[in-house]
């Protein structure tokens, strides 16, 4: 048995029952994907967006067929026509919302609530579509979670969040003063932050407890507490970074201009408009810096947590994303995409996919050549496209 450093014991099975580790390999190339991407973009523009459905299938096929495990690649099966139809319905929904906002703000509020209440259904449909159209060695993945389970899993945090926000808005309405408004906004933000890990956990559990590859079901053994742990550590890191950044700045100022200048700057800050603007820019810079640092930490921790706690049949996933490496990739991607006005984007996607996928291995127990296929199903693409359009991150 191999020892797996850094892997927490998985619930249910003893950590020693690891099996043979087999890597996930990503073979895609940035240059090749760039060529596919630019041709997709060109044809999508030329066809006024119609080709985008075919473009999506080409892109997904490229990434799936370049992701290999145990000598075979994954594959993507969605039909472009189905994606196009889903896309049209999703865009029609968005257009209805925009028009409603323009004409009757109250109707828009109703639609927003309806959208929030419809979210679990959309998540359910999107997961079904995605899994039903993904395969490995000709065996389709599947998603067995029901709509009812989606509502049971997601509605409680969503409704609680809506109540928190509604209460905050109500209070702000009642006590119109600036200070009260600030406090209320703070409370709403705190409420959101307190509920987000729970929502995230329940979404992941709904997903990873209900998927399957043919007849092999997946199981998820993380707890809500673990999700709160990742969120809290990220928050603490973020706060520490902002404080550290500001301290470093003040320190530099003192070192350069002497104590008197620093005090002078601090003293004139509340009065002078430029000083206040400067402080605003500083706070913005500090937050941005913290965000750029914390996000890779969060993503690395989260990927490791989710995949190390997922098994498929007897096989276990082992994810070892390192925060520093992920940070370097994301940071350089960001700068290069910015410097090339977006032309680096396809290279960036390939780099990130390569690192994230190659950080995952599967501890195989038993025979991978004897996986049985399940039933095939046809699912409409509306949920998937609606989730896409609204940037709903359902995750892999």
């Amino acid at each position, binding site marked *: 048995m191999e020892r797996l450093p850094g892997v927490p014991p998985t619930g249910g099975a003893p950590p020693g029952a690891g099996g043979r580790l087999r890597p996930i390999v990503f*073979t*895609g*190339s940035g*240059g*090749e994907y*760039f*060529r*596919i991407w*630019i*041709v*997709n*973009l*060109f*044809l999508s*523009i*030329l066809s006024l*967006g119609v080709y*985008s459905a*075919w473009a999506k299938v*080409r892109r997904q*096929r*490229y990434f799936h*067929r*370049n992701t*290999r495990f145990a*000598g*075979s*690649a994954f*594959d993507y*099966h969605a039909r472009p026509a189905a994606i196009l139809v889903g896309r049209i319905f999703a865009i029609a929904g968005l257009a209805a919302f*925009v028009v409603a906002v*323009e*004409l009757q703000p109250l109707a828009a509020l109703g639609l927003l609530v309806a959208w929030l209440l419809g979210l679990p259904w959309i998540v359910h449909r999107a997961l079904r579509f995605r899994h039903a159209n993904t*395969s*490995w*060695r*000709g*065996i*389709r993945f599947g998603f067995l979670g029901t709509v009812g389970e989606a509502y049971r899993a997601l509605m409680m945090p969503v409704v609680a969040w809506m109540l928190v926000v509604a209460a905050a808005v109500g209070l702000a309405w009642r006590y119109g003063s600036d200070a009260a408004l600030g406090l209320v906004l703070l409370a709403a933000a705190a409420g959101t932050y307190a509920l987000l890990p729970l929502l995230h956990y329940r979404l992941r559990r709904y997903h990873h407890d209900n998927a399957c590859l*043919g007849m092999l079901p997946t199981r998820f053994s993380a707890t809500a507490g673990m999700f709160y742990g990742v969120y809290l550590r990220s928050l603490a890191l973020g706060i520490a970074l902002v404080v550290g950044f500001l301290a470093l700045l003040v320190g530099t100022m003192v070192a350069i201009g002497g104590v008197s200048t620093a005090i002078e700057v601090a003293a004139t800050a509340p009065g002078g408009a430029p000083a206040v603007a400067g402080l605003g820019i500083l706070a913005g810079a500090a937050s941005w810096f913290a965000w750029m640092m914390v996000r890779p930490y969060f993503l690395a921790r989260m990927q490791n947590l989710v995949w190390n706690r997922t098994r498929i049949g007897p096989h276990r996933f082992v994810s070892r994303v390192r925060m520093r490496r992920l940070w370097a990739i994301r940071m350089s991607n960001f700068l290069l*995409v*910015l410097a090339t006005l*977006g*032309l680096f*984007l396809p290279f960036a996607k390939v780099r990130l996919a390569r690192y994230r996928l190659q950080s995952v291995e599967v501890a195989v127990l038993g025979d*991978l*050549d*004897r*996986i*049985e*296929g399940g039933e*095939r199903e046809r699912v409409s693409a509306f949920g998937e496209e609606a989730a896409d359009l609204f*940037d709903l991150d359902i995750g892999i």
Partner: protein
Amino acid sequence: MTPTVFFGRYFDGRTSTPVPVAMRFESDVLVVVAPDFERRAARKHYRLPERTEHGQPIIHLRGGGQVEADDVGALWRAAREGGQRESFASVMSQRWSLALLALALTLASLYAGYRWVLPGAASLVAPLVPSAIERSLGQEAIDWLDDGLTAPSRLPQDRRDEIEARFARMLERAGEDAAPGILLFRSGTGIGANAFALPGGRILVTDELVEEAARVASAAPDEALLGVLAHEYGHMREHHLMRRLLKVSALAVAASALWGDIGTVAAVVPTVLGGLDYTRELERDADREAARILAAADLSVEPLITLFGMLGDDVGAGLPAGSDWKRYLRTHPMTGERIELLRAAGR
């Protein structure tokens, strides 16, 4: 000639067991030969993979089976012998020269869409927007302004009637068929000297602007004010606000589709800059219309030009020559440019 044979691994879609197979095309029929079976698929019953340098080529068979081919080059050699053609997108993606051509064409079509297609579509659609929607938008704007930014006008009723009469006479002489009651007088407590066209066919003008304009010396009475009103009338008649609304919305959708992946900022910045560019273009249109109306009514543009100067519409005038980067952040064209345009159009 014997057909090219290529190899791969067959999966039946029911188990994950690989079966080594040899394949060939007999005209357009794909023949899959395994140690203990042979499967033939007619043209419509299989789907060939794109030819890419990287990635597993997979042939889908109707009914669920699939074949992972060992070598995409051999696969396509055999397929071409069987009369198969690669898709246009696939051919374009295989060569750098064609991909870079696609890049150039993408940039060209983005520019053309932004420069001609979008404005053209917006000016076609804007007059079709039901006037009820425009009116309700205009009423919303008035309510919003009246909630703290403007107050009821302090101008005497005679003065307002006088301005309305002069405005109507000017439009009549310019051959414009305008409904009465277009002008909306307000005291600009929060917005100062200002005038703007509202959606739904009204023009709001503040007392402060009326007073400021009265200080401009002119041959005919209220010539400067009439110039401003003619400019706003140009906006109103051409549905500029609705056009801008449509253009900016379309721009926002396009930008988020193109750059939304990178981040919100990447999608918002082009929208804002593009929106401002459109605004300047519409201002130029309205200036041209003002010059035309004034000329038709035998009025001069010079008082209007003086008024622009007085209202401080000269941000950037003190900048050294060549540093006109601020041009792109302005809602209105540079003053010098405007003056030239007004004088030229009025001739």
